[in-house]
């Protein structure tokens, strides 16, 4: 019996579409429901981050890094200041390091909550999305308490942080963690272990480890494929080597290693690990002055540096070239979602239209970061 070959249809998913996580256009060639070719078109959200950076001073770049990955601004700040401090050889006080780690991990939870919630939305579950946003809101409340902003913080500065922690911060933060930990079980009952959700995610969109590495996929997506790679552990920056935490890996519990479910599940587990880190950091939080090492004027020595940090989406790299003036010569951001999206064609071709949406959701892309 011959293969039935129908007419192929070109379908534009986006730029205005409910589940493209921003303004992304996927040009999809379909044969009925089966997708045979995917071409992503990006750039709709291009805001010239790199060109901007060449015209403002080093400290003024930080608000722009906020706006790249607007879901995890703290981590973006963190990556930039870590790179700058390495370039300028500043050793910041312990208190600053602890505060930064706490903030970055809180933001990691917030970002993963958004990723998981919208993933639920992509496969049609509405309620978990709102539960997760409800809890994310509490994290944003903590950030607002700390630095006054809810989404774009400009909190971490080269050599320090913009505000010291408020008086009651430890109690509030622990209070949130105590509130949040049981909620993960609720999400699991409501969404993760739901049979329909498993059917939609397990065995769908398998990304084998070697392909993942070749495509530069990083972060939870890479770990979902079973590759033990986490910048926090393998190239420890800041003070991540002082904490005990595990790196969750995709195990193919309900399907193949590297499927959409694994990528989802790694994120759920990472939230638990982040909670662990925050608890340890709050326990050891030292006293001290957070403004002490902020340089009066940022004039890094001539040279270039590439440093990567672990943002919720993967390896966030900054390539900074300084020519000795207070204005950067070149700032390049290697955004993790950019590489993850480039692998979409490889993963999602041959799956159904609904699966393409689900796979796109499981990659957890943020278009602000891809287009910069």
């Amino acid at each position, binding site marked *: 019996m011959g293969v039935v070959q129908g007419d192929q249809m070109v379908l534009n998913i986006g730029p205005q579409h409910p589940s493209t996580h921003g303004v992304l256009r996927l040009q999809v060639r379909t044969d009925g429901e089966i997708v045979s070719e995917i071409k992503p078109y990006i750039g709709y959200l291009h805001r010239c981050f790199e060109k901007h950076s060449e015209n403002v001073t080093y400290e003024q770049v930080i608000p722009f890094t906020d706006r790249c990955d607007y879901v995890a601004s703290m981590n973006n700040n963190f990556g930039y200041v870590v790179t700058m401090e390495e370039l300028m050889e500043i050793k910041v006080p312990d208190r600053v390091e602890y505060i930064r780690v706490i903030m970055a991990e809180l933001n990691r939870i917030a970002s993963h909550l958004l990723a998981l919630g919208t993933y639920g939305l992509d496969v049609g579950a509405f*309620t978990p999305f709102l539960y997760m946003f409800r809890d994310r809101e*509490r994290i944003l409340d903590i950030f607002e*308490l*700390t630095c*006054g902003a809810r989404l774009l913080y400009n909190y971490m500065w080269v050599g320090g942080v913009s*505000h010291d922690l408020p008086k009651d911060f430890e109690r*509030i933060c622990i209070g949130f963690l105590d509130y949040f930990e049981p909620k993960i079980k609720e999400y699991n009952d*409501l969404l993760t272990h739901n049979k329909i959700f498993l059917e939609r995610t397990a065995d769908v969109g398998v990304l084998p480890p070697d392909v993942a590495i070749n495509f530069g996929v990083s972060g939870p997506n890479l770990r979902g494929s079973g590759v033990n790679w986490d910048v926090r552990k393998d190239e420890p920056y800041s003070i991540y080597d002082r904490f005990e935490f595990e790196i969750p890996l995709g195990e193919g519990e309900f399907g193949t290693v590297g499927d959409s479910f694994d990528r989802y599940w790694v994120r759920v587990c990472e939230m638990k690990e982040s909670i662990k880190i925050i608890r340890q950091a709050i326990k050891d939080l030292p006293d001290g002055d957070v403004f002490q090492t902020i340089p009066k004027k940022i004039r890094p020595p001539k040279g270039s540096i590439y440093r990567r940090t672990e943002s919720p989406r993967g390896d966030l790299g900054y390539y900074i070239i300084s020519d000795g003036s207070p204005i950067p010569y070149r700032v390049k951001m290697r955004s993790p979602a950019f590489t993850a999206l480039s692998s979409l064609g490889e993963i999602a071709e041959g799956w159904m239209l609904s699966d393409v949406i689900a796979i796109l959701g499981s990659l957890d892309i943020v278009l602000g970061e891809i287009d910069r």
Partner: protein
Amino acid sequence: MKKYFANIWGTITTLKTGMGITWRHMMNIKKDNVTLQYPEERWPRPERDIGFEHEKYNVIRSRLHVDIDDCIGCLKCERACPVDCIKIDTIKAPTRGEDIPDIRHTGVTENGTNKALVVSRFTIDMSECCYCNLCVYPCPEECIYMVGGPNSPKHPIDYEFSEFNRKDLIYEFSKPLTSEQKSELMNPKPDAKA
């Protein structure tokens, strides 16, 4: 065959668990409700346990405000702004540290600094402001700040400043000067000085 029935059983139990959760939430809506009825109820609402109180805020990012009497026209905030939404023009004052009653210019700031410049224009375009707070820190006189929060003694909080016209979001903080007053300041008459 066993797998077939196990599958069905798994489906039934997991779906039942999920439905139990939504049912519990529906029944406990009085307790769990997180909605804020915005224009009537303002955040923070006491019943909603967000874990902290409004007074303990050490910072807020609402709207920029300038106490122009304290401004010495040093342009530090203008230079710190990454999006160039602050515009300052200054004119050299005839005498350092003296009031000029005609244009309601005060000569000495609250911190006791003598002002050498008259700020003839100080505009902040709040439609361009990115609330990064970078202009607040360099100010030597602490005269530019976000209203409310710890600064509420100086200026009440204002975070609802939407306008129908974009031009209305440009805030002018300096005292209005007529063109004659301006030219008089720029080209001081010799007898006025005497």
